């Protein structure tokens, strides 16, 4: 299921503005990788290049290579839609579709692609995905109620269920817990731990404890100043990053002495 991601010397531009410069890293399958760094340093921008979501913003483009199991995402013949089916994404703010019920939200990835599915298969997929997102017990009695009626933490887990329902190889999470309370955050973190068995997970977070709790490897991004491009400063095992980083800036940031 899960796949290996390799990034070679990637530059990301918004029109003529260089947002992220010269990123090279490798992400192993079935691991959790955390991106940390100050706001505006290009973590989210870089994350969105991993499933070509940044192209949604007018003027955004990249130079360099992103390889998933050796296949370049940015080959001119690659359809971004097919990339996104393999690399799912969970956003900062929970965004269930307001016109759909809980069940329809989970099935959205399948139904919106005009795929036919028998009712039994659909019910199985809904149950499997919601259980995968630790939400089944809370919503099994109200699958036909609107998804927007759930609490924030439940909505975020619904979005995760929606993402895993299309069985991607990689799941990208852009600050998935920043709008949630500690208990919902814990639920999501436990979920990340379980999802790791099957998927490659990349998570952007501002919460240092979260990065050290859930991730196997950590990448620290930084920015020299406003208007300068963000750069990958250091990328290593999480334990090394938080106990004995090799770059001074990383040590300052993880120990809270930054800025």
């Amino acid at each position, binding site marked *: 299921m899960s796949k290996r991601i390799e990034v070679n010397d990637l530059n990301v531009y918004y029109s003529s503005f260089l947002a992220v410069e010269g990123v090279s890293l490798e992400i192993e399958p079935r691991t959790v990788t955390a991106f940390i760094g100050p706001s505006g340093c290009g973590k989210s921008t870089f994350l969105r290049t991993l*499933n070509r*979501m940044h192209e*949604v913003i*007018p003027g955004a483009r990249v130079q360099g290579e992103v390889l998933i199991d050796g296949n370049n995402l940015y080959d001119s013949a690659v359809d971004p*839609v*097919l990339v*996104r*089916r*393999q690399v*799912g*994404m969970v*956003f900062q*703010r929970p*965004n269930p*579709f*307001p*016109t759909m019920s809980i069940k329809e939200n989970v099935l*959205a*990835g399948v*139904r*919106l*692609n*005009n795929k036919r599915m028998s009712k039994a298969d659909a019910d199985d997929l809904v149950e499997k995905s919601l259980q995968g997102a630790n939400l089944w017990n809370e919503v099994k009695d109200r699958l036909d*109620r*609107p*998804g*927007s*009626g759930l609490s924030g933490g439940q909505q975020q887990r619904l*979005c995760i269920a*929606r*993402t895993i329902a*299309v069985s991607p190889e990689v799941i990208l999470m852009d600050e998935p817990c920043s709008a949630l309370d500690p208990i919902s955050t814990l639920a999501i973190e436990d979920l990340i731990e379980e999802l790791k068995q099957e998927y490659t997970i990349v998570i952007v977070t501002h919460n240092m404890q979260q990065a050290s709790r859930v991730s196997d490897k950590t990448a620290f991004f930084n920015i020299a100043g406003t208007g300068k491009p963000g750069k990958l400063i250091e990328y290593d095992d999480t334990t090394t990053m938080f106990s004995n980083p090799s770059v001074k800036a990383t040590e300052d940031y993880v120990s809270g002495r930054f800025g």
Partner: protein
Amino acid sequence: MSVLTSPPKSPVGTPVANSLTAGKLPRYTAVYVLIGCIAVMSLVFAMIAVAAGSDFNIVASVFLGVVAYVVVIWVLSRAVEGPRKASDRLVTALVATAFTIALLPLISVAYTTIVNGLPRFDIQFFSESMRNVVGPGGGALHAIVGTLLVTGMATLISVPVGLLTAIYLVEYGRGRLKHAITFFVDVMTGIPSIVAGLFAFALFALITDDPGIRFGFGGSVALSVLMIPVVVRSSEEMLKLVPNELREAAYALGVPKWLTILKVVLPTSIAGIITGIMISIARVIGETAPLLIIAGFTTSMNYNLFAERMMTLPVFVYTQYANQGADTQAYIDRAWAGALTLILIVALLNVIARIVAKVFSPKTGR
């Protein structure tokens, strides 16, 4: 007045129940002041009327009464309650006055139309045409059918064109072309309706090589020219309201752009789009000038949009009033009844739009 009897601050020694309530005008002061001001002004004008031997001027007494009220309540409030509350009362008074003034013509129009329209608002009016009618009797069935057909066809033309234009502008449009289209749509919004009628007439006169062409479909084309910019603008605003997060959520699930628009963006905004379409219908259903030119007028039924003249309700009202026969009152009554019918059709469309919008709008589930 009772206002002045309650002092702004309790004298020293008297226990104050709640110091936060100090310095407030008693409840209903505004109402008493308003009644008082109008009463005083009425008295003044009554004395003028007696002295000059003229009629009592009710409009002037109410108007000057309100003006006096605005001044008195401001001064009173400033003295007792302080400048912040005084500004609040002043602006409240002005807003309420503006609202009342805006409402007066509306009530007047509704009242006049109902009173004058009811005498001929009968079954005959809705079951007969004006064919061979030269006195009392007759009806507007031909005009009602014509209005529904012409406006319905105009909607059929305008909604796809307008909605697809709005989707282009919001979802796909970039750079100069987008700005040019937005600009020309705005210009089209301001086209005088008679120009739209002349455009349709010129178009079909040239195509058919018939300088006297009159038919219902031409009217539909003229109305679409007026309707399309309204549909584009309202749909565009509604599509812009759909959060980008929803589009991104769909893209991240591997849904192509066109399916995202069709199955996520449109269902989310459909309630507002339908409301906008209904407003645009209400905008054109009462158009007279373009229909007079291209659809013409007739006294007979015509169910065929593509041949012969077709009567519509606004033109019916106009012709009944403009060409009164020997029995003048019969024609005027029919004109009022036609106007009443038109207003009721628009009101009915708005009610339907509300129901539809309610049914389709996203549910919160709480």
